[in-house]
């Protein structure tokens, strides 16, 4: 790198043309030595919670201990979620791409010695196939990554999200430069229509069509118009929007600025869930850096177009993910939804035309502008174009972030990429769409995962959570869980939602205690219909879905609860008993010592017994027994 390039990179300079951006990008690339070893430590939520920060620190310390020659000094880089969260903390060594899993601080020295100073793998920390024992060295080899098609999350886990130059080196803001210098706002909207992109926040409304109606509304009502990012991600069990905002905040910003240009908006808002402090921090840093490079703010790239945005932190209300509630919340009020006689594109934030899109939707826009709408529409299937990022969680080997083209069969995601539930058993069901979605049984495992196919089987795409359940998960319990969640989150303004949800939850409470009758299942269905027809917003009208789909596919399990008073999965507390297998119990007394009800008795080294009448069914004995002697029936 020449000294002048180094100096230029020291301080941000205001870019005044697409050519400037290109020059900057080349300078950054030129300044990076492709052979310089880099230790890439995942700082996604899962890996951080598992100790990722301590691992990064150990590598920094290890490098300085090793006293490596300054010229070749390897770097430590921290990134957003690398994807395979269940095997974190994850570390990748570049340029060879060795992938290390479950790395502990104590492993740093060995990895530095073998894979950083030399090019030797440390196989004990590498991905091992649970079935075949095969060891995989790099992402390209590991099936979890190899079978994905990463586009939206391509850079996540690769770039340092707190450093705009890292993003620019990989092409960030080049679509924005192209749009500002070669396209009219009308052409941008046309390209969006051609792409066929449908909103990733749940309902799947075509984004191009939304923008088009916003343009029509602006014609009638004039400006200002607002663009808004929905980063509320309320679905409990989904973290892809959080991972995008944390791992590649510039993708969201670039999409938002392009949208603002298409609609002529000067101001935007990012509404981000309060539980994601890191997403808020990274977005704030990204905005500050984008402003200092002239990519946001006044007269962007000297195109004459100005735009700025601000972040609103959510305050813990699921309903605020709903568009009208979100707008009221940004206005500083309680986030109550309002009836949608008037569409938000006409009357949204501050009563003005407003375009609200989901985080992942916005992050798709630079891709579309980069490759063109027609090319984009070739990815996926005809009515669901592009890819979708899923959060694969629950009873599955590989928990993490997965991106595949729309229309990919469920089994490919759960079994091939996710590695199945483990032990070679089939999964019981997959819940998609969170509290508004439904449970898809194993018999429908080949269902293509796209908007229309999921709706056809009674579920929905939702935001992208995919919760895998095995035979130890009870569908009545899951139905009850979602109803309870929605009952607590309902704003209480409309009666179907306020009372209907409580009544449905009561019925399921009874089921979980073995009470009720088959006739209650009819009641659940009719209440569901009342909610679907009468609720004010989609929180209520989609709330029955988890219950309806489980009744549809697992009616026997409901009947087992009310008629046989049994919970086949062994979950519903009132219907199960804990007992000790005298053959397996060796009288270690560990369960008796830990039992909070003190209802386990027996002499040392002799089989113990549980007094079922006193048992709280807390399951602590099950957890403490090392000999598998406790069973649930």
């Amino acid at each position, binding site marked *: 790198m020449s000294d002048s390039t180094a100096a230029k990179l020291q301080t941000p300079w205001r870019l005044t043309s697409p050519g400037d951006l290109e020059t900057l990008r080349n300078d950054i690339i030129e300044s990076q030595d492709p052979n310089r070893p880099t230790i890439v430590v995942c700082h996604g939520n899962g890996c951080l919670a598992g100790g990722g920060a301590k691992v990064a620190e150990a590598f920094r310390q290890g490098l300085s201990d090793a006293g490596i020659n300054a010229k070749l000094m390897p770097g430590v880089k921290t990134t957003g979620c690398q994807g395979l969260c269940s095997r974190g903390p994850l570390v990748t060594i570049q340029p060879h791409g060795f992938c290390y899993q479950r790395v502990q601080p104590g492993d740093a020295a060995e990895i530095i010695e073998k894979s950083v100073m030399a090019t030797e793998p440390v196989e004990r920390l590498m991905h091992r196939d649970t079935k075949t024992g095969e060891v995989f060295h790099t992402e390209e080899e590991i099936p979890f990554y190899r079978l994905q098609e990463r586009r939206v999350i391509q850079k996540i886990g690769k770039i340092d999200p707190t450093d705009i130059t890292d993003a620019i080196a990989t092409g960030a803001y080049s679509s924005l430069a192209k749009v500002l210098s070669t396209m009219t706002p009308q052409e941008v909207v046309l390209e969006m229509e051609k792409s066929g992109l449908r909103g990733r926040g749940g309902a799947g409304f075509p984004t191009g069509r939304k923008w088009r109606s916003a343009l029509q509304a602006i014609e009638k009502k004039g400006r200002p118009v607002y663009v808004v990012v929905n980063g509320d991600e309320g679905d409990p069990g989904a973290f892809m929007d959080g991972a995008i905002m944390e791992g590649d905040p510039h993708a969201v910003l670039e999409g938002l600025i392009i949208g603002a240009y298409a609609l002529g908006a000067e101001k935007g808002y990012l509404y981000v869930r*309060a539980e994601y402090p890191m997403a808020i921090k990274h977005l704030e840093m990204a905005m500050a850096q984008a402003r200092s490079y002239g990519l946001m703010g006044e007269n962007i790239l000297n195109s004459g177009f100005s735009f700025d945005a601000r972040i609103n932190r959510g305050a813990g209300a699921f309903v605020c993910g709903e568009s009208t509630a979100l707008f009221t919340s940004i206005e500083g009020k309680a986030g109550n939804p309002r009836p949608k006689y008037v569409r938000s594109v006409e009357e949204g934030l501050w009563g003005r035309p407003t375009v609200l899109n989901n985080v992942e939707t916005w992050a798709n826009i630079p891709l579309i502008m980069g490759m063109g709408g027609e090319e984009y529409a070739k990815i996926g299937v005809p009515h669901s174009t592009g890819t979708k990022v899923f959060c694969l969680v629950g009873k599955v080997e590989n928990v993490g972030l997965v991106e595949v083209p729309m229309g990919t069969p469920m089994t490919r995601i759960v079994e091939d990429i996710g590695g199945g539930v483990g032990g070679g058993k089939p999964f019981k069901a997959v819940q998609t769409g969170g509290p508004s979605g439904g449970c898809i049984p194993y018999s429908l495992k080949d269902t293509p995962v796209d908007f229309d196919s999921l709706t056809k089987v009674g579920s929905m795409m939702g935001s992208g959570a995919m919760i895998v359940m095995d035979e130890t998960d009870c569908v009545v319990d899951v139905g009850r869980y979602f109803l309870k*969640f929605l009952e607590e989150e309902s704003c209480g303004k409309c009666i179907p939602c306020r009372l209907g949800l409580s009544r449905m939850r009561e019925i399921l409470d009874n089921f979980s205690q073995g009470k009720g009758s088959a006739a209650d299942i009819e009641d659940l269905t009719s209440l569901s219909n009342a909610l679907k027809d009468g609720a004010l917003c989609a929180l209520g009208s989609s709330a029955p879905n988890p219950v309806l789909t489980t009744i549809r596919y697992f009616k026997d399990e409901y009947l087992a609860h009310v008629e046989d008073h049994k919970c086949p999965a062994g979950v519903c507390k009132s219907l199960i008993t804990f007992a000790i297998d005298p053959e397996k119990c060796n009288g270690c007394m560990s369960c008796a010592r830990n039992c909070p009800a003190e209802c386990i008795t027996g002499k040392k080294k002799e089989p113990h017994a549980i007094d079922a009448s006193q048992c709280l069914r807390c399951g602590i004995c099950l957890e403490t027994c090392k000999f598998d002697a406790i069973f649930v029936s």
Partner: protein
Amino acid sequence: MNPVGTNLEEIMDRYPGEPEYLIFLLQDIQSSYGYISPESMQRVCDRTGVPLTRAYSVATFYQSFRLDPKGEHEIKVCLGTACHLKGGQRLVDELERRLHVEAGGTTEDMRFTLNTVNCLGACAISPVMVVDDEYHPSMSVKKMDRELKRLRHEGEKEVGNV
């Protein structure tokens, strides 16, 4: 000594005095003091011109606002879907029993506040418990007991075993 008043004004100055900044102010106060006292609520209303009743309706609508002081330690248990399937509720039940508080409450001695959250984005290591912002992965009741014991012990040491 009342911490309110020392830098409440500094928080007030962060935003323009307009109704749309009500939530911003409440959030900043909450993160500095752990809760929103009647005095600070009054101050926010004076600043933004929002009527007191409206401000309370906002503060009670959103789950993240507290109107009473938080305990010395905050224990949060995730009850998102992944954590629920892996036994998050059991952790809450056991914590409620051990601490003699309901979720959302604070123990009488002001040592612990027990809260639940919906998904922290760390579903891979569910069930997750967070103590004062430190994550505890794959929690079991046994591990939870150990942590509780540690926290209690720590407190005793600090007050010199009174």
